């Protein structure tokens, strides 16, 4: 008599997929549903939908959206430029001790809490002569410090792996270092640069800890408004704003970084 074999593997596969979806897709779904929900109490799904919350977003909230966008653009550009500059400069030191120390130093902002960094920046720049604590500049500064490690890392990795042989080939053909950087290195760095801009942009849009510590009066970003709304119980309005934020973040990731980064890891999984 043939025994019915339990399809363990299929069950495991299903559980894996379900877990991933539950953990990583559902939050976005919740934001979308709640942003358009007119009533969602005592039910699994919203019972009716509306655009009401989006209409309730007033001028000051839109100002926060625009500010978030502007700050993110500045931080992404500045962070990438500085990151590329750092990567190019430190590229020659990959083996020596100095390079290791500097590399560790660059990663420091990534390895400390954002509130600690925010506090440090606030202390450093709220007294004359370096007082920028009453302008948006201090927010841009602290967020640039936060994204710098990412931007540096991505470009340094590309420089270390694929690019050295082309730098040499360029030099052997007679091109001085500046020409090699301009015509060989930077074009080849393009994917890494795009990824770093996209990531810095998304990161800046969503930053809370550092921004909360340093932001000047009258200044507002979407995370700040969302948190205020949540604390006051305006959940649905917070969702509407959060949806705008998410859309901007995801758009930047898809548009700027293209399909390269995610696909690399995904391709690995798919190849098996």
């Amino acid at each position, binding site marked *: 008599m043939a025994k019915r074999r339990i399809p363990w593997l299929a069950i495991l596969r299903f559980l894996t997929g379900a877990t991933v979806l539950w953990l990583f897709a559902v939050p976005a779904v919740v934001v979308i549903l709640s942003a358009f929900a007119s009533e969602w109490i005592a039910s699994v799904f919203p019972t009716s939908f509306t655009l009401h919350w989006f209409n309730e977003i007033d001028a000051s909230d839109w100002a926060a959206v625009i500010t978030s966008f502007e700050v993110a653009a500045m931080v992404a550009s500045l962070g990438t430029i500085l990151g590329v500059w750092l990567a190019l400069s430190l590229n020659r030191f990959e083996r020596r001790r100095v390079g290791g120390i500097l590399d560790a130093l660059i990663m420091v902002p990534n390895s400390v809490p954002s509130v600690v960094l925010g506090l440090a920046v606030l202390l450093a720049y709220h007294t004359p002569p370096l007082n920028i604590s009453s302008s948006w500049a201090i927010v841009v500064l602290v967020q640039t410090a936060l994204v710098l490690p990412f931007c540096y890392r991505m470009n340094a990795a590309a420089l270390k792996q694929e690019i050295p042989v082309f730098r040499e080939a360029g030099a*052997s053909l007679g091109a001085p270092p500046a020409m090699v950087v301009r015509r060989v290195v930077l074009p080849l760095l393009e994917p890494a640069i795009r990824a770093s801009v996209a990531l810095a942009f998304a990161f800046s849009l969503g930053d809370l800890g550092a921004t909360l510590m340093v932001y000047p009066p009258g200044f507002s970003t979407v995370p700040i408004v969302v948190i205020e709304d949540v604390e006051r119980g305006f959940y649905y309005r917070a969702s509407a704003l959060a949806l705008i934020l998410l859309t901007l973040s995801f758009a930047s990731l898809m548009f700027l970084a293209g399909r390269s980064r995610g696909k690399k890891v995904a391709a690995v999984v798919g190849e098996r």
Partner: protein
Amino acid sequence: MVAGNSSRAAAPEEHELSPAREKGIGVRVANLTVVLGGRVVLDDLSVDVERGEFVTVLGNSGCGKTTLLRYIAGFVPSPNGKVWIAGREVTEIPPHRRNIGLLYQNYALFPHMAVFENVAFGLRARGVPTAEIGPKVTSALRSVRMEEFERYRPAQLSGGMQQRIALARALVIKPEILLLDEPVSALDANLRAAVRTEIKLLHKAMPELTVIYVTHDRDDALMLSDRVMLLREGRIAQMGTPQELYDRPRDRFVANYLGLSNFLSPAAIAKSLPGLDHARDEKDGHYCIRPESFRLDGGGPGRLAGEVARCEWHGSAMLLAVETGESGAETILVETPRRGSVPAPGDRVVMSFSPEDCVFVRE
């Protein structure tokens, strides 16, 4: 004659520095020591290459041959080495001003540029006027038969085509020297032979161009070079024409590297070939006899008898392993043409050889 060979083999270490000949110095390296990661990669190496000469740097991986090439190009520092290119000392000069042509093992064509731009790159770096770049690039591509592929990207081309583009790119700038890093190592045997021929023809068309060719493959060395420099652990084991290294190797390492060899003790030779210089002791070395030097028709003065153990077919010839000496202790490899009667395993044969075929080599 054997004594002459052996006296050359017994001579002390000699650097290959010689006074500049009529054609001038193509490349000169003096006292080059390179230490990488605690390991001595090149040990006080000095060499002279004549202008227009084709020199192969031969050796196993880790012997320092690629490091030597990269040093000449200017990518490897050395505390006390000095290097001249085309008579000009370039030790302190950065790579982009040395006027060299460098061919990488994986071609290193710029992936983001089309073929035309790749080849034009060196010309642009030298400030050649735009109007002249086009014709020069086209002519360079024509010389490697790739002129139809100007608009292609490297990723669209096969390995062999990419290599020809890389060659065109390196040569269009008319460098003083051409440095090649194992150009045929990754190719299959048939393609290898074809590319070797192309390189040889290219060199013939440019007699002023000094070529340094790095490889581990002795066939490359034998076929292409004017001179061969065999490196071992950062030092020159022997340098000379391919014939010199093949026919008169200095020691066992060189003999083995350049081809199959048999090593017979002086005592064994004394038994089979009376009249040879017997003052040699087994401690000093052995006599090297190449497999193709043995004949099975009893022609030469020296004689060795034995029994065929194995027969291997090597395309144009058969390779026999013949056991000889006391109770078959030594195995001699004999190469014999396929024509005529070929001994089979178990046959007893008499191998004859001449004194000219014996080279005394040190250990």
